């Protein structure tokens, strides 16, 4: 494609959905188990792994979603 226009491919949409749905799911879980999670994390000690693990998982899934989001809008890095 020599001109600067861009097209949204089916693969891009699939990737967006593949990252988007788990992101929504993870945030829904966070909302649903808000009280239990806060109570668990407030105990501290070795339970420090809980917020760290949540942060890693959400950063991976939501990070993939946000990358696809800008990509599908045609906002891509200049090579």
């Amino acid at each position, binding site marked *: 494609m*020599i001109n600067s226009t861009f097209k949204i491919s089916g693969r891009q949409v699939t990737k967006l959905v593949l990252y988007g749905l788990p992101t929504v799911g993870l945030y829904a879980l966070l909302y649903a188990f808000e009280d239990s999670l806060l109570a668990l994390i407030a105990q501290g000690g070795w339970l420090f792994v809980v917020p760290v693990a949540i942060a890693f998982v959400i950063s991976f899934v939501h990070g993939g979603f946000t990358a696809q989001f800008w990509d599908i809008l045609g906002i891509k890095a200049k090579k």
Partner: protein
Amino acid sequence: METAVNFIDLTVLDVTYLLVVGFIGGLVSGFIGSGGAFVLTPAMMSMGVPGIVAVASNICHKFPKALVGAIKRAKYGQVDVKLGLVLGVSAEAGVLYGAHIQEGVKRSFGDAGSNLYVSLAFVVVLGLVGGYVLWDVWKTHRGGQGDAEEKTSRLARWVQSVEIPGTMVYFKSLNARVSVLFTIPIGFATGMLAATIAVGGFIGVPALHYVLGAPSLMASATELVIAFVMGLGGTIKFAWSGLVDIRLAMIILAGSLFGIQLGAIGTTYVKPGVIKVVMGTIMVLVLVSRAIEIPVYLAQLDIIQPLDPHLVALLKNLSFVVLIAALASGAAIVFAALWRGVGAHRRELAAAAAQVTSMPAAVVAPAQTQLSPLGRFERFLVATDGSEYSAGAMREALRMAKRCGARLRVVSVVSTDVEHEATVGPLLKQELSAAHDHLASMLEQANAAGVACETEVLQASSPDEAIVHAAEQAKSDLVVMGRRGRRGLARLMLGDITARVIGSAPCNVLVVPRAAEMHGKHFVVATDGSRFGDAAAVTAGKLAVLFGTPVTVVSVTQPSHSAERRAEAQQAVNRTVSFLKQEDVTATGEVPHGRPDEMIVLTATQNDADLIIMGSHGRTGIERVLLGSTTERVINQTASVVLVVKSA
């Protein structure tokens, strides 16, 4: 809702507020490596979150954000992971020491004393460093060097020249060996500042740039690695005490990951000076914000007369507004730079396309048929997938075919593995139709440029095998492809079609990054003295004569090489330069010292080369995965076209 102690109820307005501030903070962090999070702690406190929980939740969103930003910018080749980790470890020590000092000040002088200490640290550090950064930008701008390459500072040149045995480490961003005795204090100071004012990057990024000599783009990207290490350590410390409000952290993260991706993309469109403008502006405005509050703390410590409560409230509100303005100003500069950069880039691409399609219609007479396959350019196979990554490949294939009088065969591969076809038949038809449409437009372009061209849609389960087979069938001399730029772990796990074609192709492969253009300004040919290097040199000679282009011959030596090996490299360069001169090519030689891929790319950049020519050892499969390939790393790092020469 009943939540545990220290954790507040959240309203929709609170969530929206955190998402927006998180987005803007992420945008700035993605761009300058840090500095986007300082507003979040006061923002959360203004919602009623206790100070210590606000700090803990802020740091818990910072490390995953920095991780995503670092991975994104590593894709653009801007991150020096080794330097980031070395500095990150010493920064952890700085964080612990900084927190210890903070606790000591608080014990001795109370909250007001602690606040005064933090504000004074802001004013002194940001005044000195922020002022220097802005002065440097102004000096460069006034000297009319805004577009010039960044120069390494005199201090950094001295730091890089100091040799302390047993402490020297090579860092790719510096392209030099530096003693860790210099990196440790820088990391330590970054950590101390992070523990004091929550933004270590205000020391880290300028120190990486001005003291160690990293380009400002790499300095800001490498700071994200330091921020990740520090953030992870800080999160563990606070989470151990049960102080992290995971809801706050993840809501901010939701906004900031959108921002950090956009900020990282923005860095690829701007001149390095813009990073300094954003950083300097934010630093000076934050300084003003903190300075406004200093009289309040001085009055609380009875150092000056007590202030009227209304005045205290006014100063605190004013300080917070200036803090928000600092972040908003940074974000506005990033947005403006991104907007201008994307617009200019799209215009460049459109102009390049117009240039190709407006070429004269006459077809150049085919080059004389050669008996040797080396340097023969008569039949090109262009592999396109219809994406923007293939745009450069078609453009340069047309340009080169005109110059060489070659014929083009343009192929587009549509995936048809059994599972794919069975489940998404209609989608396959749609893809086939799109491929035919795309090839029709390619044919039109070739006809307009006066280049003989035929097209074919290939259906195959493995695109690389299909391309290699098509090249064999068509007896092609050259395969022309785009580059996806996949690196690191992704390359190991997923492979890359271009890399696999290079490994198996029966002929030379021209790899064209999306925006690269080959006008024949300067060529760089890399040789290691082997027959693969000789094949590259012969091909370089043929092309240099065709284009009338000067050539730089480069052979890289590494720290592990013996004196004998270094002498061999010099001999290989001398031999190749002599050969090229016999062919009436203007040629010079260089024997740089460092990592081969980095030195080859650097030589190309320094000579403004638009083509790098390399031989291929042709490793495929597990051997390529285990050993890697200098050729592949050069292809991933350079912005120039790369010709991979396959010797028989």
